[in-house]
């Protein structure tokens, strides 16, 4: 776990400027499909392990389509955590910039609801509300079949993914500190309930 980061005063605190940076740390992916759930997993781990300064939100967004636009509109910075399909060994971490994400333009699609990260960023950009800073922390998956658990190599990469998020917060000059006594929020990672009150 990284040490608490105490930021010095920054320009934005001065009079006449917006004092609070709006930042979203979002985990994206399907928690029912193995390593695709790494984004939500890390997001929930972050929100139960750290407290962040006002303006910084951590969200498990699941699998949004174009409504991702609503979540990213008007942000100063967006940090996305998502599994990536790049053929690299499971657990490999690759950082993508906004340009990397939108480079190929939106796909022409049969299914208008497929993952819409590229479209959402481009649409927000078109209407002038895209986040100023975007970082995608991509984790190569190795297992995407039905199941609520991460594969061993992806699980082993989780701590490093968390570090990448914190490093980005440092770079953005945002503070955080370890949270006390917060419960794990990763509800899907439990074994099936053993029993239930039966009447």
């Amino acid at each position, binding site marked *: 776990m990284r040490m608490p980061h105490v930021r010095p005063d920054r320009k934005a605190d001065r009079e006449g400027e917006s004092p609070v940076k709006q930042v979203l740390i979002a985990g994206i992916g399907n928690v029912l499909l193995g390593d695709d759930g790494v984004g939500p997993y890390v997001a929930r781990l972050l929100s139960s392990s750290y407290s962040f300064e006002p303006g910084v939100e951590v969200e498990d967004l699941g699998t949004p389509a174009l409504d991702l636009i*609503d979540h990213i509109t008007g942000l100063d910075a967006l940090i996305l955590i998502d599994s990536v*399909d790049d053929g690299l060994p499971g657990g490999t971490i690759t950082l993508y910039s906004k340009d990397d994400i939108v480079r190929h333009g939106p796909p022409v699609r049969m299914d*208008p609801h497929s993952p819409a990260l590229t479209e959402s960023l481009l649409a927000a950009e078109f*209407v002038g509300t895209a986040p100023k800073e975007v970082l995608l922390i991509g984790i190569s998956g190795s297992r995407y079949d039905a199941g609520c658990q991460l594969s061993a190599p992806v699980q082993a990469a989780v701590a490093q993914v968390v570090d990448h998020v914190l490093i980005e917060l440092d770079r953005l000059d945002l503070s955080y500190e370890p949270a006390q006594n917060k419960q794990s929020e990763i509800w899907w990672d439990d074994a099936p*309930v053993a029993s*239930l009150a039966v009447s």
Partner: protein
Amino acid sequence: MAKRITIDPITRIEGHLRVDVQVDNGRVSDAWASCTMWRGIEKILEGRDPREAWLFTQRFCGVCTTVHAMASVRAVEDALKLEIPANAQYIRNLVLINHGLHDHIVHFYHLSALDWVDVLQIPKADPAKTSSLAESLSPWTRNSRNEMKAAQDKVKAVAASGQLGIFANGYWGHPAMHLSPEVNLLAFSHYLQALEYQRKSNQVVGMLGGKTPHIQNLTVGGVSNAINLDSQAVLGMERLEQMKVLMDEVATFVQQVYLPDACAISAMYADWFGIGSGVKNYLAVPELPIDARATQFDLPGGYIPGGDVSSVRAFHSHADDQFRQSVLEDVTHSYYAGKTRLHPWKGETVPEYTDWQADKKYTWVKAPRFENKPAQVGPLAQVLVGYAQGHPLTRKWTDAALDRISTVAGRKIGVAQLHSTMGRHAARAIRACMLAELGQKHWQLLVDNIAKGDLSIHNPPSFPSGTIQGVGTHEAPRGTLSHWVVVDGGKIKNYQAVVPSTWNASPRDIAGAHGPYEASLLDSPIANPELPLEVLRTIHSFDPCMACACHTFDPTGKQIAKVKVL
């Protein structure tokens, strides 16, 4: 010469829709719809607590979250024969209505309008003419010349930069695009405005559901929204009033912008009222119960066989026996082993993958059948089922839409022409107008019921020791959704979700009958096999959603259509 076109934007991981069409002399002579990923995620539910199933099912897909949550709690409540309080019905209905409005608006403007609207024609438009055209169609207050000019300037800037961004990879300049520059601009200015209004609907879902895309406020037996009219912390009058303001704004947008646009654009492509009919057996379940016991509904359900609206059969409850008994899933052409036809309560999900084989197995989608026949589901099915039963609200908005369309088209477009690609778009706009009106009604029902002093939101479930089974139905934005659950000793033994896109994207069955997507493509014109816009138009008109799969980001970009000469 026959050609086979494979449209497959799919990566290794994402389970999405692939369509293959065979083209002879510029027309589709055969079609196959397939999904490239196994949707066996229901398996995860086995052995779990049925009270928690909805948390998992709403993760099937990020677009349809609320609908899978709703069908799941209803399925367990049906198994328990557990009624929910009236307040819970109204709160659920408001979530469903606002989710549906968000979905329909986004589908029309952001996911399918650009099949018909050519963005690159917009710089040629005259904003003043566009504004007067818009004002002739609707009293909407945001149709001014300045509004049109601002939208046009955005497109001009993007076009001048050479970086089309969100509009790269469109089928611009395709011969099947033929709106005037002014109509293109009009539609596009509303595309931008629609981004604001879809968000308002989602805000209402978030205010009731706690968050989107995955709501938090359901429980088996009701909802978890504590009610206290004087409190700001829970559901009180202040929050209800905020919701009402948002819902009124969306209702105005839907009735003054979406419906007029859908009618005008469809009328300008009136030949598409004669293309894309396909399967004419229509299925819809009743939705928006108006009493605690769910005996009366504001959206009617039923079944129309063979496109004959006079032979409609009504479903009177969520527990309608016709529906429960008549649904089977056929796996003749799907990558599953086992018996060909099974009822969902007995459903098996044992994968048996082969390659894509045109005359054998070619998809991961099962083929649901109603009375052994394929059935089309979605807003068109719902509108026709309601119209056929003389449902006043359906008649009101359908007649209004058909009048508008006929006026612009200069010829009569009637109910018979709704069996088509454009009919599906028109029906979705009609349904949106109905939902907007019903949203106001159900808001009032909730407020009035609370005012009577009823603050009840939840009836606790209690599980018997033996085996029980239930079905939860929901008429979702994409059509009839049903979750089928078997519970044994308080734990889930079997769970099957028969989703709308499974009905519509289903493959052939044992009798060789095409599924609705496949049938709708037969005989469609194809101007240019390299750019199969016509196929996209018809498939998009169903509002497909195969996203019950992964959302993995694919950094490489993929081409979409491959053409093979046979």
